[in-house]
């Protein structure tokens, strides 16, 4: 199929074919059109494809062959924790008693599902050291916004309406400042210091009576643990602000440290990352939030609790921020995370973090031979290199990423975090073997040699993929967002 247009499903369509077997009309037919004004009866059928079942399978199998996942090969995409997605998780999520239950069934008929959720909630409280957890948010970003809304409600309940600012480090993920805006706050930036950590002096400058919260990722997006976390918590708390933990990087510290013990008031987790979601080509995720006792009353409703030995969804929560999502969260993803936690237990989860960190440091120490490492201390589960040395040779980080495609790897996250020039953010995860890491290291080192000896080879990469570099400028200037025949 190389170098040829792969047909759209619409281009495979032929009038008269179908891949669906509809049940019979086994009731007396009535004339529907009598019931509706003519203007409400659709005149032109939507242009969905008409294809046979085999054609559907061929089409999507073909598309899957044009896609790369963790099962295809190494995927060290920093900040995304692309670890192995266990197959038992997929199997249990498809059990009828989990996949075919309705959120409005009476709770007495879904106690098994609620038991699982309750157990997951309790486990996540323990892992994070938070008092109570809600499984309602759909993904990390929604968890962030939920957490900030709770912080807002907390301040307002104290009669404090002037806390309009949320502080985010310059290294923060884009969803942090975006969530602050959606929650009605103004995002203000705190700088990082020469060690890649939050600059305490700058923090003291920006913190004040208008501070609602500080949002922090720890380890941060450079993969570095914020060693002065206790002091930071004190500074923010003393000013009356709350501390928000972006748990996207929890994979580094399970069993070693807990956000609750570090003084965080609100935490969100990305179950699709640390807890094997999977990532689904972009989602669905799940972004539970955990809170300290002080903030418990503000959790989204309903909350899941035990009452007289029965599990119930409790709606009588007068201080709750309300509902953030219909029903009870992304149950199917929560179930997969639960299955993973039950597979690993306390011992396994601690090993996960131990090996995630070991793998990252092992790679970092070998790659720093050829790539600049702006922050040389031990890293946690990921590290950030700078391609500035290669840039001087005319080879950009983007080129290095594209060259990795030729060798069958998914590149690291690039150009993030923003406070590193030509950033390459590498997160190997604990599920990769030493041989896999060694293979990737070798290729990265040889790409560095190519940059010196044959820069064009790298600049013009990829050479072996089914398509070459895309014209993104035209895509954005003259957007074609749907098929037209």
């Amino acid at each position, binding site marked *: 199929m190389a170098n040829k247009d792969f047909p759209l499903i619409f281009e495979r369509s032929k009038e008269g074919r179908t891949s669906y077997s509809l049940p019979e009309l086994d009731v007396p037919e009535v004339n*529907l059109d009598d019931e509706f004004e003519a203007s*409400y009866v659709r005149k032109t059928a939507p242009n969905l494809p008409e294809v046979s079942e085999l054609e559907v399978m061929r089409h999507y199998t073909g598309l899957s062959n044009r896609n790369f*996942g963790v099962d295809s090969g190494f995927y060290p995409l920093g900040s995304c924790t692309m670890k192995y997605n266990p197959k038992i998780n997929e199997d249990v*999520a498809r059990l009828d008693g989990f996949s075919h239950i309705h959120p409005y069934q009476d709770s007495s008929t879904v106690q098994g599902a609620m038991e699982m959720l309750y157990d997951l909630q309790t486990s996540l409280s323990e892992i994070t050291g938070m008092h109570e957890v809600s499984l309602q948010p759909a993904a990390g970003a929604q968890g962030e916004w939920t957490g900030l809304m709770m912080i807002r409600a907390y301040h307002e309940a104290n009669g404090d309406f002037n806390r309009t600012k949320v502080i985010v480090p310059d290294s923060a993920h884009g969803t942090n*400042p975006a969530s602050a805006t959606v929650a009605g706050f103004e995002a203000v930036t705190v700088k990082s210091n020469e060690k890649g950590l939050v600059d305490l002096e700058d923090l003291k400058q920006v913190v004040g009576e208008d501070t609602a919260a500080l949002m922090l990722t720890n380890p941060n997006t450079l993969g570095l643990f914020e060693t002065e976390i206790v002091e930071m918590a004190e500074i923010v708390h003393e000013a009356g602000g709350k501390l928000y933990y972006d748990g996207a990087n929890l994979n580094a510290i399970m*069993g070693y440290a807990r956000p609750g*013990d570090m003084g965080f008031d609100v935490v969100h987790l990305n179950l699709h990352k640390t807890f094997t979601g999977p990532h689904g080509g972009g989602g669905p995720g799940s972004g539970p939030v955990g809170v300290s006792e002080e903030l418990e009353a503000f959790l989204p409703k309903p909350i899941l609790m035990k009452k007289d030995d029965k599990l119930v969804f409790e709606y009588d929560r007068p201080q709750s921020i309300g509902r953030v999502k219909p029903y009870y969260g992304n*149950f199917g993803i929560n179930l997969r995370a639960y299955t993973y936690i039950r597979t690993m237990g306390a011992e396994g989860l601690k090993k996960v973090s131990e090996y995630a960190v070991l793998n990252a440091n092992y790679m970092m*120490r070998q790659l720093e031979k050829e790539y600049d490492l702006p922050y040389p201390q031990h890293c946690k589960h990921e590290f950030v290199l700078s391609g500035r040395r290669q840039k001087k040779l005319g080879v950009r980080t983007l080129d290095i990423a594209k060259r990795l495609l030729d060798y069958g790897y998914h590149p690291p996250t690039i150009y993030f975090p923003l406070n590193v020039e030509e950033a390459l953010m590498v997160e190997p995860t604990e599920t990769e073997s030493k041989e896999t890491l060694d293979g990737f290291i070798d290729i990265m080192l040889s790409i560095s040699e190519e940059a010196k000896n044959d820069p064009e080879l790298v600049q013009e990469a990829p050479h072996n993929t089914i398509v070459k570099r*895309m014209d993104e400028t035209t895509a954005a200037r003259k957007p074609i967002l749907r098929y037209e025949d």
Partner: protein
Amino acid sequence: MEFRYLPMTDQDKKDMLTTIGVESTDELFSDIPSKVRFNRELNLKRPANEAQLKKELTDMANKNANLKNNSSFLGAGVYDHFIPSVVDHVISRSEFYTAYTPYQPEISQGELQAIFEFQTMISELTGMPIANSSMYDGGTSLAEAVNLSAAQTKRKKILVSKTVHPESRAVIKSYAKGPNLDIVEIDHKNGVTDLEHLESQLDENTASVVIQYPNFFGQVEKLDRVRDLISAQKKTMFIVSSNPLALGYLTPPGEFDADIVVGDTQVFGIPAQFGGPHCGYFATTKKLMRKVPGRLVGQTTDEDGVRGFVLTLQAREQHIRRDKATSNICSNQALNALASSVAMSSIGKHGLKKMATLNMQKARYAKQKFLDAGFEVLSDAPFFNEFAIKLTKSVKEVNARLLEKGIIGGYDLSDAYPELNHHMLVAVTEIRTKEEIDAFVKELGDIHG
């Protein structure tokens, strides 16, 4: 204890520590201040082996009454439709489900093209020129639409019909607190929006009017009348939330000049799974193209002129615009959008209308049966596949008795509409048989007494 997801051997560990130049992995954690070190073992259940865990979870699953072992008449936003086998076979291909957001187009053409096709299908169904790659669900998609309308019109007042899904309305209210919007709910009359009330509330401060079509009660709102009222206020936007299956029969909201159309594609290939993950869609006009939340895939060509697809118009998104982004959404519902695409491809152009009308025929048969059995119905206005009936007892009590007969009864409307005490919302999809419907009416009649 050995863990099958962790390939690290003792020898590997030793070699790697030597390379790093440390004695133990503990040294790598020495940057965690002792004050915040966690010094005991996490208190979690013991790890379970694969066989044991499968059994444990199967037992847990079996404690739940499920929609496959019972005949279900429960809908209210989540429906029991037939899912063709191909759907699960496609989404189980791990090149799809173990990938993430297609940042590297050269090795992600599969996902990108699948999204482009999804965008096209949603655009076709809704009659809107543009659709995005997915939102978390219908409820949050609607809330984002509301916030967009306020930002676009620089107005704060939002009129939301009470016939919009109660949980979507709850989510709208939560999202509205950020930008401080004023959410005004419009009454219903026997399950359809009270247009007089709507007209009396509509003014030059109204950012948008939100209508569900078909609405929460299954009834078909008069979109042309609503549109006429809105048009009297220059900038006010028209937001419609739609069950996309119904659009196989009904005129799409795009033809009534909707500005934003949202909803959930759960009806296409996504199991109920206790309410999520489902899949929100978001469709709009060309004018709002650069305000859309979430990811958009566009068609382009590569250096050799080969057609391909990329994430595009990213200057709207959080990773570029940070606090100025049009939304904070990052991960979305890509795999479920794929499931819906496969289901929509299977159903096809002509199948869709057949499937929609099959739902409508069976629902009408059921409704007539209830009328014949002497039940009162809430309304005789046009509807899709749901309708409300009045019982003499509480719905909760009735449903408990129905379950003994293998029937999952309808939704208890009194939960969200206190004025509709003892009213049950009944959903009839294409997979309910005549026998099941007859049995349901009979059992309800017996309980009804």
